[in-house]
């Protein structure tokens, strides 16, 4: 077992003249949940497919579980693609067992595990039901269970929350947390920041096929100015005049307005408060806030998030 189950070094993927992923490097540590964030068409799926050796990089080096090709270690990997389906005429338990067998489990073990997982996740009575008879939510659970049935060391989940109802989202969050508690390494891509914020130890933000950030949430926040929410009848210009203030944004106008005040990286919020009192500004609200992952994401990939069409070409080419 390696300390860095996944490593990418200067990986580039081109489709003709179009560059889907450009000089991307990152590493995932053993036992962590690694978020792979980016707007639609940013190159997330291409990167994950390269990790799995489903598509080959144009340039660069990839190491997965100590191997240069995921093909040789695919039995130790569980993969849930963004677009996933099941054979309509196959039974639920058979589907899970089939994919587990393809990933190395013996026939008997795969069958046993399939039934156990279906029981555990409340689908025991549907084990012999054909997939076409399952509800969408049930089918999604079956797909998830098929991904983990062979007990992989590394789980790669591409947009696992997309299309899930809130109950299944919660089930999946719990499943990811349980898998991590079991010592597994998990990479999941998403463009829904709340999940990443709740689950990820570290994350990578990718846009236009290029890395914009890699690290923990607190590291990301450190790179951004601190925000203070204040309510006052004073005009915005009065706050802008204080030292350490980068910008003041009106959130809600009125007799008393709400402002989002962004301080410079080294500014102290207490110092801001002292300065405001000394200047005779009356504050009826003073609240310190760190940047959310959403803020960070929009700041780093905002142009992409707003105009995903360019990136979508990569998805179409995939």
């Amino acid at each position: 077992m390696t300390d860095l189950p996944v490593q990418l070094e200067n990986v580039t993927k081109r489709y003709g003249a179009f560059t889907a992923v450009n000089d991307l490097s990152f590493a995932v540590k053993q036992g962590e949940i690694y978020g792979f964030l980016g707007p639609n068409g940013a190159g997330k799926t291409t990167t994950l497919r390269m990790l799995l050796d489903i598509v080959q990089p144009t340039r660069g080096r990839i190491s997965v579980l100590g191997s240069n090709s995921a093909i040789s270690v695919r039995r130790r990997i569980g993969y849930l693609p963004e677009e996933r389906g099941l054979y309509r005429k196959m039974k639920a338990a058979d589907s899970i067992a089939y994919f587990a067998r393809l990933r190395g489990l013996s026939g008997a073990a795969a069958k046993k595990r399939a039934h156990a997982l279906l029981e555990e996740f409340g689908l025991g009575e549907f084990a012999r039901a054909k997939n076409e008879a399952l509800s969408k939510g049930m089918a999604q659970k079956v797909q998830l269970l098929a991904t983990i049935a062979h007990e992989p060391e590394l789980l790669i989940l591409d947009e696992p929350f997309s299309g899930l109802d809130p109950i299944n989202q919660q089930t999946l969050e719990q499943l990811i947390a349980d898998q991590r508690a079991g010592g597994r390494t998990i990479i999941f891509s998403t463009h829904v920041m709340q999940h990443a914020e709740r689950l990820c130890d570290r994350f990578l933000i990718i846009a236009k096929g290029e890395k914009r950030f890699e690290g923990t949430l607190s590291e990301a926040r450190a790179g951004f100015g601190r925000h203070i929410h204040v309510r006052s009848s004073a005009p915005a210009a009065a706050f802008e005049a204080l030292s350490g203030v980068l910008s003041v944004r009106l959130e809600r106008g009125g007799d008393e307005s709400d402002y989002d005040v962004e301080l410079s990286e080294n500014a102290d919020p207490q110092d801001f408060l002292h300065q405001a009192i000394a200047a005779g500004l009356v504050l009826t609200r003073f609240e310190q806030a760190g940047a959310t992952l959403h803020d960070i994401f929009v700041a780093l990939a905002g142009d992409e998030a707003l105009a995903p069409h360019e990136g979508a070409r990569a998805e179409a080419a995939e």
Partner: protein
Amino acid sequence: MKQILLIAWREYKQYVLSRGFLIFLVMFPLGLAGLTAAMGFAERSKPTRVFVVYDETGQYADEIDREIERRHALSTLNAWNIYLAAYTPAEAAEALPAPFAPDGVSDARVKAIEEAGGYAAGEAAIADILRPGAPPFTAPRGQFERVAGPAELAAASSVEDAESILRPYLLEERGVVRADGEAAPLFAAVLIPQGFGVSNETVEDAPSAQYWSRNLTDTALEDLVGNALDAALKREAAEAMGLPRAALDDVAAIAAPFEAYRPDREAEEAQLDTQDRVETLMPAALTYMLLVIIFGVGNLLLTNTIEERSNKIVEILLSSVTAGQLMMGKLIGIAAVGLTMPAIFLFGGLAGSVALGAGGASFLGPVFAALFSSPLLLIYLFYFFCAYAIFAMIFLAIGAVSNSLQDAQSYMGPVMLLVFAPLPFMIMVFENPNGFIASLLTWIPIYTPYAVMMRAAADPPLWEIVGATALMLAFAIVLVRFLGRIFRNAILQSSPPKAREVWRLARRDAA
């Protein structure tokens, strides 16, 4: 390899263990048995067809009766052969005295049986070897009966008169009376005018005999009467030439001893037998089977690849196996589906031939001998799988670039044309296995398997077969790589590529 076999097994199971296929498996022999039984029942339940002969010459009614009797004797003898095959052990039956032992159906054997005491003597001869519970032998019912017809027919003064008398009977407005006193509809009337025959004129100048019947589809009686009159006139002619009438029967019974030989064998083995004939037909049969299988499984490959693509299963599969393993698994699984049906027929036939004993063995024995003892079988199998691989890959690639059957239709037309294009030429290859067309098709890689299978038994030039096979294998490798790239590159695309992009997908390793 395990993964390939797993994929192949899933593909195989999906179709072969499906309800439809199993129902077909049960229904097919039942249907076949039902059809045979229905045909037998239809034949047995066919009413005896009653007819009238108005013969102004007074000479030919007896000739027709004789022909009816002769045919009935032959069909009785045929029934005897079937009875022996069904109810006596083959070896014991072979050991019976000559006219009663299983043999060909001929007038001479009919005569020999009569002389040996008829079927009663035959039944006595087989009494000891008859299987327990066997029913007694019964001769088939007569198919035709000539009746005198209505009384007023005797008063008819001409053929026209007779026709107008008989018309209401032929239109079943009135019935005639059979020999046993039962009333029956009149099936046909034969009117023979004065002057019919060859006595003093040439046959061409003589007036025609007429056959009247409302039933235009059942021509058995019409054929029988025609044959009987032909034979009668030939006998008359023979007599006019000074030969006794019976001499013509003797002449007609002569069958020239004629045997066919092949020069590529030693003298004692050179005579052609049934197995040789079957071996000659086998390439054509296998080529036909190949086409049927390619067409059948091609559609399976297509629909199932489209399902995996449109249901988004393929990416999960590709995270577990390589595109090459996936392709190979599908090819093997679907090939097995394609071969299951012929295998079932083959083993069904084998079981049938065992069950039928001597009768079945005489028919199916040479087929199995040709299939299993011929050194050509391995050659056929080799080319069979080459052709399958080439065409199956084409279907796989079409499946990979299509999200629906509708998408696939635009590619299927040209492919089907390609698959079936050699059919019209195959008859030429069959008849002249070393001719120009045969050579030409041999050198076209996609048709090499068909052409070589058709020619294999005719000793084509070795250099030509080796050269064309090498070319075909090289072509197959290039094609498999080319189509394999299309499969790999297209199968993960969310929307199907346009036709003009397919070439680009094959040229670059876009994955």
